[in-house]
C-alpha cells in the first residue's frame, strides 16, 4: 500500500529508505524516523484497536506514552511477542510485525462489538449489581464468560526468547526528559562539573522540539539549535544520554527505575544481546522535565477513529511528515489547537471549522489562524460525531444552545489544554499544588531531592520552558555541591505562549443519559459513569476511581484524571483542590517482566546450595529434594526400586547393620568467649554451666513468646567454646536472633558468634555397627563405649583429617557424626564408605532419616511444631533448666495464660486401624466421623510414615490433652474416608534406649 498520506517534504524522517512492516497481516511501508503509529497514519490507517469494555472501534489518539487506544501486540514470533505496546512509542523497523488486540475475528468485524449495543445496561460498576442469580451461575456461566472477555492483549505462550540486563548507577543530577527544559537542565548541571544522566523515552532526544518547526532560537531554526545543544552535551564528558529509556518509577531516597530499550528498535536482534536494561539510578538530585500531556475534550462520541488530540496531529504533520486527514474539524478550549490547525492548513488539509468553547479567543496563535483565513467559531461546541470505523461528520452548535450544523470531515482535532506530567513527582511523595490559573496540579513541596522544570512544572511557552530548565539544572547542581557558570538567556522568536483549557464534560444540550462522552478511553469510562458514581454516593476521588475504573491500568490519570475531577467539581459544587487527586502509581508506562527478572533466570533464579558430598550422591543415582535452598539426597534407589521400597531397604539397613547419611546442611554456629556458657544459659531453655567439655546436650530454643523455634545438639569443646547445631533451615534465623540479644540485650557478655555451617561437612554413621566402621579410621581418640558414651564428643583425626567426632543419634541406634573441614568432606565420606563395605554399609537419605527419627518420637521443628508449640506441648519439658532464673521465653511460659491452661495440644503417636494405611500429614482428628460438619477438631497429624521396623504405619500428632488420652480411639478425616486411629506414646521403638549403645 502506498503512503498516500505522507507529505512530500518536512519532518524528521528519512524518505530515502523504505521500511516494510505488517499490521494485522497486511503489508505497509514507512520510513526510518517513524513510529508504528505515524507509519500507519501515513498509510491512511486510523482504526487500530477495539476498546476494553464496549469493543468500540478506536483510532490513534495521541503521539506519545499516553496513548490509550492504539495498543498493539508486536513481535516477529511467539518468543519475541509483547502485548499492549503503544503504537505511538513503537519505533518502526524493517520487518516489524504487529497486530491489533481485543477483537475477533477482525478489527472491522468484531463480535465483541455487540456489547456496545447493550451499553445502557452495563454502566460503571454494573458487575457489582448483576450476576447475582442464580447462585451457581456465577462459577459456571458468568465468571468463565467474563474472564474470556476481560483483559487486553494476550500473554505470549512460550518463554521470552530475549535476555535482559540490569545495572546500578550513581550520578549527581538525573534529568528525566530530554525536551527543551530537560536539555537545558542537563547542560546547566553538566557545565558545573556534575555527573549527569539524561534519559528520554523517545528514540531521539528533543521532546517537544522535535515537532517544533516555526520557532527560532538564538536566531537558528529548531533543528540546528537542538543539534548544537546535543553536541555540547555529548562533549561535556560527564553526561550519559539514554534515549529509548523510560523513567518508570521514583523509589525512596532518590532511586529512579529506568527501563532502557536496547534492541526492540532493531530489525533482527541477536538474542545473545540484551533486549532491554533495567537501570537503578541513585541520584543526588533529580530534575523532572517530563513535559505535559494534552487533554481530550469530553463531548458526545468523542472516541471515533479519526478523532485525535490537536497537538498529536500537529506532531504527525511536523515531525513525521504525515497528514492525519484532509478535512478537519477542530474543537478546542486552548490556543495550541490553532497551531495544529495552521500546521494542517499549511500541509494542504482543509480546516472545516475551529469550534472554540471560549467566547472570545485571542492571542498570537488565534490571530495567525484568523489571518490565514481559517473559520473560527467562538463560543461553540461539538454536540456529536458520526462514522463507524472512521469519523465522517461532526455537529457544531452554539455553546448556549441553538440548532447544530453538521460538517463532513475525516478528522476531528480536540484540545482541552495541557496536564503537567507530575507522575514521577507524585510517586516521590512530593505534594501537588493546584494552580487555578493553569487549572492543573503542579509540583509543590518536594519530599525528595528533586524539582520539576518546563511544562511538567506548568510553563506555557518555549522560552519559559528553556529558562525553567536552566534554573532547575543550576539549582540541582548547587544542591549537589557544584556551581554552574552563568549562562546567557536564549532568544526565542515565533513561539508564542499557548493558554486556555477546559475541565469536565463539555456542554452539548443533549439528553446526557443518552450520549457517551469518554473520559478514560482505555477503560471505557464516560462522563455519565462519573455522574452515576456521584449519584450513588461516592464522594472521595479514590472511591470514584475504583467504582468507575477511571484512570486505572496504564492510563494512571494521564488523559482521564483532570476531566473526571472537572465533572466531580461541577456536580458536587466544590473546587478541585478540595476534591484532591488520586495517587499516581508506578510504572509510568508498563515495563516487561523480563527487565525485572534480568539475569535471575534458570539456574540463576534461585541458586542451589550443594553439600561437599552432593556430587557423590548424584553419581550414586540419588533422588534429591529441596530443603530451603539446599539440595538434599532424599533416597538412593537401586535399579527398578520405588521410593517406598528404597526407603524400606535403607531403614532395615540402619537398624540391622549400619547406614551413612550426609548431615552437612545442619546449621552450625561457633560460640566462643568467657561468657559463652552464660550466653547459652540465657538463650536456650537448658542449663549449660555444668556441661563438661567433651559432652553434648540437646538444646531447645524458644522465642520470647515461649514457643519452640529451633533445636539442635550443642557440644562443649572447652570452658569457653561451644559447637552449636541448628535445624537445616533455621541457621540464619538463629544466628540473627542470637546477635540481636547479644548486641542489644546482653551487651555485657563477652561472646563471639560465628556461622560455621559451610565450614564443616557432617557425615552421620548410624547403626549397630557404626563403631566398627569408623574405628579403623579414627586416630587420637578412644571411641569405645566406656571412653566415649552417648552424647559425648572428641577432637581427633578421621581418615587423617582433623575432625570433631560426636557420638550422637537421630535414629535411636548407636551413632556418630563426623565433622570435618568441608573441603575434605567427600574424601572422608568415601573413606568411611569404603571402610563400611565390610559391614554392608548403606547410604540413606532424608526420607529414611525422617522415618527413623519418627519411630523414636524425635520431633522436627517446623513439622511437629508450628510456632505455637511450647516445649511441654511436644514433650520437651524435661529439657528446661528449672533452676535458671531466666532464659528467652521463660517469662512468657510463666504467664497465667499458660499456667492455667488445660487441653493444649500435645504430642502423641497414632496407630491406624488397619495398620497399612499411611495417614496424610495435616489431616484432622475428630471423635465422631459421621457427625455433619462443623466437627470439633481435636488435633492434627504432623508426621506419617510406613515404619518398616514395626511393619505398620505410624504417625505423630498434636492432640488436645493427648497425653491423658493415650489408648483412646479417634478418627482421622481423609478426603474420601475416615480412618480409626489409636493414641499411643510417641516413642514407637526401643523406649528404653538400649540400642543407643549398639
Amino acid at each position, binding site marked *: 500500500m502506498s503512503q498516500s498520506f505522507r507529505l512530500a517534504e518536512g519532518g524528521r524522517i528519512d524518505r530515502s529508505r523504505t521500511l516494510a512492516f505488517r499490521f494485522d497481516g497486511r503489508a505497509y511501508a514507512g520510513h526510518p524516523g517513524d513510529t508504528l503509529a505515524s507509519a500507519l497514519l501515513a498509510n491512511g490507517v486510523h482504526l487500530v484497536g477495539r476498546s476494553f469494555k464496549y469493543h468500540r472501534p478506536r483510532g490513534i489518539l495521541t503521539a506519545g506514552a499516553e496513548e490509550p487506544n492504539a495498543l498493539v501486540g508486536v513481535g516477529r514470533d511467539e518468543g519475541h511477542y509483547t502485548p499492549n505496546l503503544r503504537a505511538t512509542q513503537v519505533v518502526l523497523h524493517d520487518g516489524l510485525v504487529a497486530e491489533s488486540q481485543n477483537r475477533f475475528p477482525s478489527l472491522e468485524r468484531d463480535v465483541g462489538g455487540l456489547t456496545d449495543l447493550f451499553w445502557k445496561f452495563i454502566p460503571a460498576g454494573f458487575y457489582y449489581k448483576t450476576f447475582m442469580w442464580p447462585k451457581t451461575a456465577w462459577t459456571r456461566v458468568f465468571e468463565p464468560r467474563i474472564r474470556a472477555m476481560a483483559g487486553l492483549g494476550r500473554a505470549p505462550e512460550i518463554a521470552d526468547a530475549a535476555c535482559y540486563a540490569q545495572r546500578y548507577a550513581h550520578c549527581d543530577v538525573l534529568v528525566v526528559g530530554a525536551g527543551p527544559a530537560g536539555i537545558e537542565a542537563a547542560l546547566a548541571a553538566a557545565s558545573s562539573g556534575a555527573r549527569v544522566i539524561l534519559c528520554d523515552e523517545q528514540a531521539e532526544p528533543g521532546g517537544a522540539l522535535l515537532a517544533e518547526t516555526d520557532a527560532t532560537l538564538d536566531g537558528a531554526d529548531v533543528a540546528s539549535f537542538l543539534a548544537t545543544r546535543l553536541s555540547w552535551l555529548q562533549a561535556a564528558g560527564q553526561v550519559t544520554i539514554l534515549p529509548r529509556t523510560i523513567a518508570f518509577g521514583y523509589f*525512596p531516597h532518590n532511586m529512579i527505575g529506568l527501563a532502557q530499550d536496547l534492541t526492540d528498535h532493531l530489525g533482527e536482534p541477536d538474542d545473545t544481546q540484551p533486549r532491554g536494561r533495567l537501570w537503578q539510578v541513585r541520584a543526588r538530585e533529580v530534575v523532572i522535565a517530563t513535559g505535559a500531556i494534552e487533554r481530550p475534550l469530553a463531548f458526545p462520541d468523542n472516541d471515533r477513529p479519526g478523532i485525535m488530540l490537536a497537538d498529536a496531529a500537529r506532531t504527525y504533520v511536523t515531525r513525521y511528515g504525515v497528514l492525519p486527514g484532509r478535512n478537519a474539524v477542530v474543537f478546542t478550549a486552548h490556543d495550541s489547537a490553532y497551531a495544529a490547525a495552521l500546521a494542517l492548513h499549511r500541509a494542504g488539509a482543509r480546516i472545516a471549522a475551529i469550534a472554540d468553547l471560549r467566547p472570545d479567543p485571542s492571542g498570537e496563535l488565534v490571530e495567525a489562524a484568523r489571518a490565514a483565513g481559517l473559520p473560527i467559531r467562538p463560543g461553540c461546541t461539538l454536540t456529536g460525531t458520526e462514522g463507524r470505523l472512521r469519523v465522517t461528520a461532526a455537529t457544531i452548535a452554539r455553546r448556549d444552545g441553538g440548532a447544530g450544523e453538521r460538517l463532513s470531515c475525516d478528522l476531528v482535532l480536540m484540545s482541552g489544554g495541557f496536564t503537567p506530567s507530575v507522575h514521577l513527582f507524585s510517586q516521590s511523595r512530593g505534594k501537588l499544588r493546584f494552580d487555578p490559573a493553569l487549572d492543573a496540579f503542579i509540583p509543590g513541596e518536594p519530599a525528595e531531592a528533586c524539582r520539576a522544570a518546563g511544562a511538567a512544572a506548568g510553563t506555557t511557552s518555549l522560552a519559559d520552558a528553556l529558562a525553567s530548565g536552566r534554573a532547575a539544572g543550576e539549582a540541582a547542581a548547587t544542591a549537589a555541591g557544584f556551581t554552574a557558570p552563568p549562562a546567557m538567556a536564549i532568544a526565542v522568536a515565533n513561539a508564542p505562549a499557548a493558554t486556555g483549557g477546559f475541565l469536565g464534560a463539555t456542554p452539548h444540550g443533549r439528553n446526557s443519559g443518552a450520549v457517551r462522552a469518554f473520559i478514560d478511553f482505555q477503560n471505557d469510562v464516560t462522563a455519565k459513569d462519573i455522574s452515576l458514581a456521584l449519584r450513588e454516593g461516592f464522594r472521595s476521588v479514590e472511591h470514584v476511581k475504583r467504582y468507575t475504573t477511571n484512570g486505572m491500568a496504564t492510563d494512571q490519570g494521564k488523559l482521564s484524571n483532570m476531566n473526571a475531577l472537572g465533572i466531580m467539581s461541577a456536580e458536587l459544587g466544590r473546587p478541585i483542590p478540595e476534591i484532591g487527586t488520586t495517587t499516581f502509581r508506578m510504572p509510568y508506562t508498563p515495563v516487561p517482566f523480563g527487565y525485572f527478572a534480568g539475569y535471575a533466570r534458570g539456574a540463576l533464579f534461585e541458586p542451589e546450595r550443594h553439600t561437599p558430598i552432593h556430587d557423590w550422591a548424584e553419581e550414586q543415582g540419588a533422588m534429591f529434594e529441596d530443603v530451603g535452598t539446599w539440595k538434599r539426597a532424599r533416597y538412593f534407589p537401586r535399579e527398578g526400586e520405588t521410593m517406598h521400597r528404597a526407603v524400606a531397604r535403607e531403614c532395615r539397613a540402619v537398624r540391622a547393620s549400619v547406614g551413612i547419611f550426609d548431615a552437612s546442611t545442619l546449621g552450625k554456629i561457633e560460640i566462643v568467649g568467657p561468657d559463652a556458657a552464660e550466653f547459652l544459659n540465657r538463650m536456650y531453655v537448658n542449663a549449660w554451666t555444668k556441661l563438661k567439655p567433651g559432652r553434648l546436650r540437646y538444646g531447645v530454643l524458644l522465642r520470647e513468646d515461649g514457643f519452640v523455634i529451633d533445636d539442635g545438639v550443642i557440644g562443649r569443646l572447652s570452658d569457653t567454646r561451644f559447637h552449636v547445631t541448628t535445624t537445616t533451615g533455621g541457621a540464619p534465623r538463629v544466628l540473627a536472633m542470637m*546477635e*540481636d540479644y547479644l548486641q542489644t540485650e546482653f551487651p555485657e557478655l563477652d561472646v563471639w558468634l560465628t556461622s560455621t555451617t559451610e565450614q564443616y561437612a557432617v557425615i552421620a554413621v548410624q547403626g549397630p555397627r557404626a563403631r566398627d566402621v569408623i574405628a579403623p579410621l579414627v586416630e587420637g581418640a578412644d571411641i569405645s563405649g566406656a571412653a566415649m558414651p552417648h552424647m559425648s564428643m572428641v577432637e581427633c583425626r578421621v581418615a587423617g583429617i582433623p575432625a570433631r567426632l560426636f557420638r550422637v543419634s537421630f535414629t535411636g541406634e548407636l551413632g556418630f557424626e563426623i565433622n570435618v573441614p568441608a573441603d575434605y568432606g567427600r574424601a572422608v565420606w568415601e573413606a568411611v564408605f569404603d571402610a563400611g563395605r565390610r559391614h554392608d554399609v548403606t547410604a540413606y537419605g532424608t526420607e529414611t532419616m525422617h522415618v527413623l527419627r519418627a519411630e523414636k518420637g524425635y520431633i522436627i521443628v517446623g513439622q511437629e511444631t508450628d510456632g505455637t508449640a511450647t516445649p511441654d506441648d511436644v514433650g520437651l519439658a524435661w529439657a528446661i533448666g528449672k533452676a535458671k532464673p*531466666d532464659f528467652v521465653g*521463660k*517469662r512468657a511460659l*510463666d504467664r497465667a495464660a499458660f499456667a492455667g491452661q488445660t487441653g493444649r495440644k500435645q504430642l502423641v503417636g497414632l496407630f491406624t486401624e488397619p495398620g497399612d494405611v499411611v495417614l496424610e500429614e495435616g489431616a484432622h482428628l475428630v471423635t465422631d466421623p459421621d457427625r455433619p460438619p462443623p466437627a470439633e477438631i481435636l488435633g492434627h497429624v504432623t508426621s506419617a510414615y510406613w515404619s518398616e521396623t514395626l511393619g505398620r504405619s505410624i504417625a505423630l500428632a498434636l492432640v488436645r490433652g493427648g497425653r491423658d488420652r493415650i489408648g483412646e480411639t479417634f478418627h482421622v478425616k481423609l478426603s474420601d474416608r475416615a480412618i480409626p486411629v489409636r493414641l499411643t506414646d510417641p516413642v514407637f521403638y526401643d523406649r528404653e534406649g538400649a540400642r543407643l549403645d549398639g
Partner: protein
Amino acid sequence: MLLIPCPHCGERPEIEFAYGGEAHRVRAADPRAVDDASWTDYLYIRRNARGEFEERWRHAHGCGRFFNLRRNTYTDMIDRGAAR
C-alpha cells in the same frame, strides 16, 4: 530501595540490611519482676506509627551490627543526623 546510613559502614542500599522492628523496647533486667500485662505488652504491642518512627536495623550483609534510626513511615525519609 532505601539508602540506609549504617553508623559503622556509611550509606548502603536497603538490600544489605534486615529490619529489626521498633526501637527502644527494653527487655526487663529481671523478667520475673514484671507483671503479666506488662510482659504481654512487651511481647506483642507495637506503635505501628504513620509518620516519625524510631526503629532498629541490622547491617546483616555488612558489619552485622544493630543500630537505631528514625524514619518517616509515610515518606520513608530518614533522619540522617540521628543515626546512632
